[in-house]
């Protein structure tokens, strides 16, 4: 499993539909301060099912929807689609016949969220099930937030055990 494509629209500072297509190999995301790099990381955590606005650096889920700028008005919906290439690495049993699957999440200002797999509505749990056992999920140690790398070292011993538990 690997991330093949990300489509972000209306999520945080991405007012217009933005597409990132990831080929094999190493990818870097660069740009000046405040341009939206870490927002891309938040988009990945969110589409994987993250439910806490604070973990996505917002106060409420509404902070995740594009709130406007000097030249644009606020939008009413945030949507992120992540296309996963299933031809390599570990794949959840249910999806071994697929070469790729698309996971989509939407949120509206009234607080409702919608989830889709292959454009078919599903529950949050169905999305979470895709990632179970792979080591990747919205709060996994495989997504290191900006300025938080030192946490594992400065955390208390009881907190550190969760990193081992996740891998067990």
């Amino acid at each position, binding site marked *: *499993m*690997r*991330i093949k494509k990300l489509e972000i629209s209306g999520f*945080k*500072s*991405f*007012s*217009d539909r*933005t597409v*990132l297509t*990831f*080929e*094999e*190999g*190493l*990818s*870097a*995301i*660069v*740009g*000046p301060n*405040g*341009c*939206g790099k*870490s927002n*891309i*990381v938040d988009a*990945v955590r969110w589409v994987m099912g993250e439910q806490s606005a604070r973990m996505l650096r917002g106060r409420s889920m509404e902070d995740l929807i594009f709130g*406007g*700028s*000097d*030249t*644009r008005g606020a939008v009413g919906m945030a949507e992120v689609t992540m296309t996963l290439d299933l031809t390599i*690495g570990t794949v959840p049993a249910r999806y071994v016949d697929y070469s790729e699957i698309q996971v989509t999440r939407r949120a509206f200002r009234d607080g409702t969220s919608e989830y889709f797999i292959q454009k078919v509505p599903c529950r949050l749990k169905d999305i979470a099930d895709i990632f179970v056992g*792979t*080591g*990747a999920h919205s709060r*996994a*140690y*495989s*997504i*290191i*937030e*900006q*300025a938080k*790398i*030192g*946490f*594992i*070292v*400065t955390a208390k*011993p*009881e*907190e*550190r*055990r969760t*990193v*081992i*538990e996740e*891998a067990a």
Partner: protein
Amino acid sequence: SRVRFKEAFDAINERFEKVFPRLFGGGKAKLVLTEEDNLLESGVEIVAQAPGKKLQPVELLSGGEKALAAVSLVFSVFLYHPSPFCILDEVDAPLDDVNVDRVNEMIREMSMFTQFLLITHNKRTMEICDALFGVTMDEPGVSKVVQVDLRRAAELAA
């Protein structure tokens, strides 16, 4: 369960004892259980010795050494239980060039079985990547993404 935790702990510790000296260019480190006889609740200590220095608690390490020790642990977990993808948001910020290169070399190797997305301002890290995505706000407040080459990436990160 108890057995699985212990098995994971031992395997990760074995890798940590190799990865730490590799990233630090020497020294040694290991993980220690705070309560050997209580595997379900025991905490995990990190004892580390940077090259040429005394063995000491990780709190006395410098800012960059702490980040490097943390990266060593995360990579050790990966080597035991690879994750399909890994996203690192400016983990190279506190590191000097020598340590950036060591970390990047290891990322390069691990990218055979794990997909890496690296957010960085460091030109040395950009140089090891196959694809570069430049995020801009030409229209202030509105993010756009363009694929760029190294030269353009260095300008954007400026």
